[in-house]
């Protein structure tokens, strides 16, 4: 049993094979692998006896259930109105310059992916971003680089 097989198997054992468990199981795979690969989707479909197309269709509905390759740290910069007003473009520019990739791309070392996302619920502390589940607010071009540098240097 490879790592992914065990992961899916354990998640299904924990949550059960009822359809209501699908989201927690997909989220569990995301936690470990940051995205849902074709293999992972097929394994989940098989373990839960749900058509693979249906699992894929469900996953692609949710913006946090990525089906494209993602880095270890997924950066999601809020692009909704208040963050847009408070300079999210400059923040993205700073991130792009620092990581040398564009929005939607993943670094070669698969450490970072930059994405934009809809309202994160931090409009009073805009601009805001998520790095995986962690929130960073009132970003500046300097602070965002400091934050990412820490992620980059950590092992």
């Amino acid at each position, binding site marked *: 049993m490879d790592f992914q097989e065990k992961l899916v198997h354990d998640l299904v054992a924990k949550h059960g094979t009822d359809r209501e468990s699908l989201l927690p199981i997909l989220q569990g795979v995301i936690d470990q692998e940051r995205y849902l690969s074709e293999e992972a989707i097929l394994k989940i*479909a098989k373990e839960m006896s749900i058509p693979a*197309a249906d*699992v*894929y269709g*469900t996953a692609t509905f949710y913006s946090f259930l990525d089906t494209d390759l993602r880095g270890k740290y997924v950066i999601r910069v809020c692009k909704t109105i208040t963050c847009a007003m408070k300079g999210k473009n400059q923040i993205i520019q700073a991130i792009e310059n620092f990581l040398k990739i564009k929005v939607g791309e993943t670094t070669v070392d698969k450490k970072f992916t930059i994405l934009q996302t809809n309202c994160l619920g931090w409009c009073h502390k805009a601009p805001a971003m998520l790095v995986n589940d962690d929130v960073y607010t009132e970003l500046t071009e300097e602070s965002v680089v400091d934050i990412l540098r820490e992620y980059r240097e950590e092992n």
Partner: protein
Amino acid sequence: MSNMVNLTINGIAVSVEEGKTILEAAEKLHIKIPTLCYHKDLCVAGNCRVCVVEQVGNNKLVASCAMPVSEGMEINTNTLKVRNCRKHIIELLLTEHNEECTKCYRNGHCELQELSAEYQITNQDFIDLVPDKNYTVDRISPALEKDDSKCIRCQRCVRTCAEIQSVGAIAVAHKGSEMKISTVFDRALDEVVCTNCGQCIVHCPTGALTEKSYVEKVWDAIADPDTHVVVQTAPAVRIGLGEELGLGAGTRVTGKMVSALRRLGFDSVLDTDFTADLTIMEEGTELLTRLKRALVEDDPDVALPMATSCSPGWVKYIEHKYPEYLPNLSTCKSPQQMFGALAKTYYAKNIGVEPQNIISVSIMPCTAKKYEANRPEMKDSGYKDVDYVLTTRELAVMIRQAGIEFEKLSDENYDSIMGTGSGAGIIFGATGGVMEAALRTAYEIITGREVPFENLEILPVRGLEGVKEASIKIEGTVADWNFLEGVELKCAITNGLENAHRLMDDIKNGERFYHFVEIMACPGGCLGGGGQPYPVDDEVRMKRMEAIYAEDCELPIRKSHENPEIVQIYKDFLEEPLSHKSHKLLHTSYVKREQY
């Protein structure tokens, strides 16, 4: 009796059962409300919004397909507000839709086209969204094509694939402007659990899902003077073709069809009914052999129930979903493929044509047959047994292209050899037909008497019901079949893969036991196949079914074993059922496939 609810539609009072929708109430008053995502075969979606109507006292419009009636409701279906909104919705759908109607396979048969004509959408002000969409077309399968640029996202195909067929090859994926109908990771239909049944096609309102057409290939073959083009016609085509050509559901056109095929230029017009009869001989013998092994020899390895293998949609389904039951599947090829294998051997020899010069075409009510003909196993004649498969709809296209006034044609007869079928062969086209045909022959072999049903009509196996059961107690057996004396032969019949799925689960869980099961992938059997005319619902299927049984009734020979051409082929060529030659040409094997 359930409670009745009173309401008015356009000022006219109507009373309908509680739980009915506004749309159904309007139907009762013969008020037509346009629909797109609604289909009688499927659960209600309420997502296209074309069927919106005005409800007095409600400041929103309501979707008539999804809104249940309530007492005192006042509905208006044709107000200015309703018309304007509907027109907007049709316009919106058109902006996402590839509007090259003249280049569309379904030009003239498209519900969206019809609706936009009805609402006179002549000047489109909204912005064309198609150029910015990365629409893809999947033409990889030998049976089906999926063109996302024609899709209106009504999800009828998705509901069909899940609800009627329990396959789930396609689903709704992504959201917002990106929302689309997709297989897993947008793979080709050929690379997923799709059974090629084509039910998605007959339920699709537009040209987003279509059969892969081989019309041009067939025209080329006919035009080639060095090729002998032989055509076979499946039982259900003769009761579907007239409908496709505008003669109304349930019109029987066997003689006209034969006549038309000759005029199209086919060198020989033959009948799949012949190999349907042959299937009964082979499959019936296979069943009896299995029963003998089970009952006399106590062989624990014999796989029962034996399941029919005529329906290629069902065959692919079981290969994906119940691979452990592949030994239960009859090894008999479908009538189409038996015909193909014989066309390039028995028939070729008989008429003195080299098999490499024969092009074998079949006209089928089915899209899965296109896939079946392309299976790598299907080359037992030494050549591709069936070269091209056309649907009933494609044959109608050829007839129109040839300028044939179909209705005016006189009736003609099939050629021979391989052109004679019995009534038992013809009822293969309806769910329960294979079972009935098999019983007519098997019972007689075992007992020496006809099946104990008036006029040979085994009524318990007939009808549109999802799962039918029948049992026949075998009494008064002849010497060879003494071991079956007193045995109650248990049979089940299903149509539609969702029903097959239920039946298989029951068998798997040990909740039901049968000796023989007939399974057809499509609702109603082949008469409701993916290659038949659209639109279709149970009312239409019922009319087609009546036509099939009427056809059976009128034939002089109604039992497969009495078909003189069958007697002849065993005498001249095959020797006996399950002979070495039969095994080589008429039987096949199956493959285990990915389950999801």
